[in-house]
C-alpha cells in the first residue's frame, strides 16, 4: 500500500503538480525588472511630470515608470506646459490633458484613464440607448492598431465595428464639425461686420487642451476664444435634444459615447459647463457626452470582442447626424478648421459660394509650426488668418503678439497637438516618439478624401440644412446659443476641482 501511495505521489510530482505556482494562475503583470536592480540603474534618469491621481484624462502606472524624462520632453519642450508656471503651485496639478506624454512614454507607463468599463456597462444595459460618434481623425489611424500602414482609410470599417459592438446609433463628429463651422463662421462674420461688439482676433474653440491652456496661461485672452462648443459637444447636445424629440426617446436614457483621438476630450466631457442638453431639459444631470474613448481604447474593445477591422465590410453612418462635408472631415488636420471656416465664411460675406479653384487653401496646410495666410473676400477686403499647432508654437505666437510683433489677424486656429487631431494623445502609438512622417501620412489621407468629395462646404451639407430648418432655425439663433455655446462662469478657471467627477 505504501508503495502505491509513493507511486501516486511521484506521478503527481512529475506530471506538473510541482509547477503549480502563481506563474501558472496568473502573471504579475509586465514590470521593467531590468531597472529594479540597483546595478541596472538606467544610464539616464531625469524625473517625470506630475499627474493628478484623480485626473479624468491621464493615468500613470508607477511600476512601469523608468524616470526617463520623455514625458518632460513632451510636456515642457513640445507643449510648453510643464515648468512654464511659477512655483509654489497654487491648488492644482497643472495639466492641459493633451496626452502628448502618452505618445512619448517608452514603457506605456502613462495611459489614458480608461472608460471602457462604463461604456460596456451602458452597452449591456437594455434601458440605455447608446449613441456613438467618431471624430474625423480616428478613421485614418484606427487601422494602425490592426497592422495597417499609417493613414489607411477605415471609416466604413469603423462604423461596422461599432455596430457590431452593439452601439444603437453611429453618428459622425464630422457632422458636428460642419455644425461648428456654421456657428463659428457666423460668429466670425458677425464680429467682423460689427454686429457683435467683440475684439478680433477670434480663436477657435474646438480643442479643449488649447482652451485649458488659454485659461491657465493667457486668461486675458479667454474672451477671444469662440463661444462655440466643440463638435463633440454639439453632436452630444443635438442627439439628446433634437434626435431624442424626433424619435421619442427619453433623453435620460440616451448614453452618448465619443471615439476621439484625444485625451483632453475626456476632461472636456466632464467639465461642469458641458451639460447644455441637461439645461435644455431642466435636468442638470444630463451631460452632452457621457463617455469618451480614445482610438486605442476602441481598438482594445474591438480586439477583446474579436473584431478585426481589416475583415469588416464598409458601412455608412446613421442618417440625420451622419453626413459630413469635406470641410468637416479636414478638422482632423492642422489648418483644417480654418480652411473649412473660410469656405463657409466666404458665403456669409458674399452670399456666394467660394469658387472651386479657391477651395484648396494651401497656405494653412502642412506641418509648419506657425502658418499665416490671407483671403481676399470681395466687398470685405483681406482677411488675415494664422494657424498654429502644438502648444509650444502657440506660446511663441501669442508671446509675439503680446510684444506687438505679429498683429492684425482676424482669426487664429489653435490645435494643441502637433499636426492637429491626427497627432492627438489618444491616437495609436505607431511611432515613438511621434514623428512628422506619420503625421504627414495621416494628414494627406484626409486632404485626399476631401478633394474627392463632392460636398466640400459645410453650409451645403443637406443634413445640416435640415437640422437648421427643423430645429435650430438659423446659425446663431437663440436655441443654437443655448445648446451649442457652453456658458462659462465669470472668471472661469481650468481647475481640476471644476471637473465633476462621476466615475
Amino acid at each position: 500500500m505504501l508503495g502505491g501511495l509513493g507511486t501516486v505521489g511521484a506521478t503527481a510530482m512529475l506530471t506538473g503538480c510541482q509547477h503549480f505556482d502563481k506563474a501558472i494562475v496568473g502573471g504579475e503583470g509586465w514590470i521593467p525588472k531590468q531597472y529594479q536592480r540597483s546595478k541596472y540603474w538606467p544610464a539616464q534618469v531625469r524625473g517625470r511630470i506630475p499627474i493628478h491621481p484623480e485626473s479624468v484624462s491621464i493615468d500613470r502606472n508607477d511600476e512601469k515608470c523608468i524616470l526617463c524624462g520623455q514625458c518632460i520632453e513632451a510636456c515642457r519642450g513640445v507643449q510648453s506646459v510643464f515648468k512654464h508656471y511659477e512655483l509654489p503651485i497654487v491648488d492644482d496639478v497643472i495639466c492641459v490633458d493633451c496626452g502628448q506624454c502618452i505618445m512619448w512614454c517608452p514603457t506605456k507607463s502613462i495611459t489614458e484613464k480608461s472608460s471602457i468599463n462604463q461604456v460596456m456597462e451602458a452597452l449591456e444595459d437594455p434601458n440605455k440607448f447608446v449613441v456613438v460618434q467618431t471624430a474625423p481623425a480616428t478613421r485614418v489611424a484606427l487601422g494602425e492598431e490592426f497592422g495597417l500602414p499609417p493613414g489607411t482609410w477605415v471609416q466604413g470599417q469603423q462604423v461596422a465595428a461599432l455596430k457590431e459592438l452593439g452601439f444603437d446609433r453611429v453618428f459622425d463628429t464630422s457632422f458636428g464639425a460642419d455644425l461648428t463651422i456654421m456657428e463659428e463662421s457666423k460668429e466670425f462674420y458677425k464680429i467682423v461686420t460689427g454686429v457683435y461688439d467683440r475684439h478680433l482676433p477670434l480663436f477657435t474653440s474646438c480643442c479643449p487642451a488649447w482652451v485649458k491652456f488659454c485659461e491657465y496661461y493667457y486668461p486675458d485672452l479667454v474672451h477671444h476664444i469662440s463661444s462655440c462648443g466643440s463638435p463633440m459637444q454639439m453632436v452630444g447636445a443635438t442627439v439628446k435634444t433634437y434626435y431624442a424629440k424626433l424619435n421619442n426617446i427619453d433623453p435620460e436614457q440616451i448614453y452618448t459615447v465619443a471615439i476621439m483621438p484625444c485625451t483632453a476630450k475626456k476632461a472636456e466631457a466632464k467639465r461642469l459647463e458641458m451639460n447644455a442638453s441637461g439645461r435644455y431639459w431642466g435636468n442638470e444631470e444630463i451631460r452632452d457626452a457621457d463617455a469618451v474613448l480614445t482610438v486605442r481604447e476602441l481598438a482594445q474593445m474591438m480586439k477583446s470582442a474579436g473584431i478585426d477591422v481589416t475583415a469588416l465590410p464598409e458601412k455608412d453612418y446613421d442618417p440625420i447626424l451622419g453626413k459630413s462635408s469635406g470641410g468637416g472631415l479636414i478638422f482632423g488636420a492642422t489648418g483644417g478648421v480654418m480652411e473649412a471656416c473660410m469656405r463657409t465664411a466666404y458665403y456669409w460675406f458674399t452670399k456666394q459660394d467660394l469658387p472651386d479653384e479657391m477651395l484648396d487653401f494651401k497656405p494653412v496646410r502642412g506641418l509648419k509650426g506657425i502658418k499665416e495666410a490671407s483671403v481676399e473676400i470681395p466687398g470685405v477686403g483681406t482677411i488675415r488668418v494664422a494657424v498654429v499647432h502644438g502648444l509650444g508654437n502657440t506660446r511663441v505666437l501669442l508671446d509675439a503678439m503680446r510684444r506687438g510683433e505679429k498683429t492684425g489677424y482676424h482669426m487664429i486656429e489653435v490645435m494643441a497637438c502637433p499636426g492637429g487631431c491626427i497627432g492627438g494623445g489618444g491616437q495609436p502609438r505607431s511611432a515613438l516618439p511621434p514623428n512628422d512622417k506619420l503625421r504627414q501620412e495621416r494628414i494627406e489621407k484626409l486632404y485626399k478624401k476631401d478633394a474627392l468629395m463632392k460636398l466640400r462646404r459645410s453650409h451645403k451639407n443637406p443634413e445640416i440644412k435640415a437640422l437648421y430648418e427643423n430645429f435650430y432655425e438659423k446659425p446663431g439663433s437663440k436655441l443654437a446659443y443655448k445648446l451649442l455655446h457652453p456658458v462659462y462662469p465669470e472668471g472661469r478657471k481650468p481647475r481640476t476641482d471644476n471637473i465633476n467627477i462621476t466615475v
Partner: protein
Amino acid sequence: MAHKWKAPENSKAILVDITKCIGCDACTVACKMWNDIEFKEIRRFHAEDREKIKLDAYHWTSISLHKVEKDGKIVWRYAKHQCLHCDIPACAVACFATALKKYPNGPVVFYPNLCVGCRYCMLACPFDKVKYEWYKTFPWIAKCHMCPTRIAEGKAPACMGVCPTNVMTLGDKDEILALARKTIENDDKYVKHIYGEKEVGGTAWLYISDVPFEKLGFRTDVPTKPMTYYSYGFQKYTKPAMVGWGMLLTALYLYTKRREKIAKEEKK
C-alpha cells in the same frame, strides 16, 4: 546630562524647499528603483487620502499632499517624507546590537546582518520614520539610508537625482544651513524656521517652507536636544547590565555546579 555621542563634524546635508515640489512622485519611484524595493501595491490616491500618506517598508520616501490655508486661500503643498538622518540618531543609540550606524558624512545606515529584530529603534525614533516589514516571516526594519554609496561617491541620493524641479540641494551641512538661512531671509514668503536645524539636535535633512510645518505633517513638538540627552542616563547601563547579568548567571551556574560536585563527592 552628559552623553558620549557626538554629532559628526561637517557631514553632508540636504535642503528640501517645499515650495518647489509639484508632487510628481519621481523621488518615490527612484527610491524603489535604486534600492530594489518591491512594488507591492500601486498606490493610487484620492486627494483626501494623499494627506494621510505614511511611510512603510515599501516606501522609504513618499510625498504627501496637504491642503493648507494661506492668506485666506486654500493652497496645495507637497511634503517629502523620509528618515531625517539625525546628527545624533536616537535609533542608533537605542540599538544595542549596533545594527544602525551614523556615518561621519551623514547617513544613518541599517546593517541587517546585525539586527536582532527587537524594534527598539522604532520606539526610539522621535519622527516615527523607522518602519517594519510586518508582512515577512523574518522581518527587518526598513528606512531611508540616504544612498550612502552615492553620497560617498559625491553623488546625490537617488531621489534627489531625479527631481525635475530641483527641490533638494546637497552640500556640506554648514554651507547648506547658510543657504537655507539666506533663502528664508531674502524671501518674505518663507516661514522663518529651518526644520531640522535644531530639532533633536539637528538633522541631515533640512526643510524650508512657506506654510507652517505642523500643517505639513511634520512633528514640531520634539525637543531641541538629542533624544539620547534624556535617555543616556539609564541607557548607558544597557550593555553593562546585559554583560553583568550574563556574568552573574554564569557565576551562579559555576557555583551551583561546583556545589553539586562537592556534595556528590561527600556522599561517596
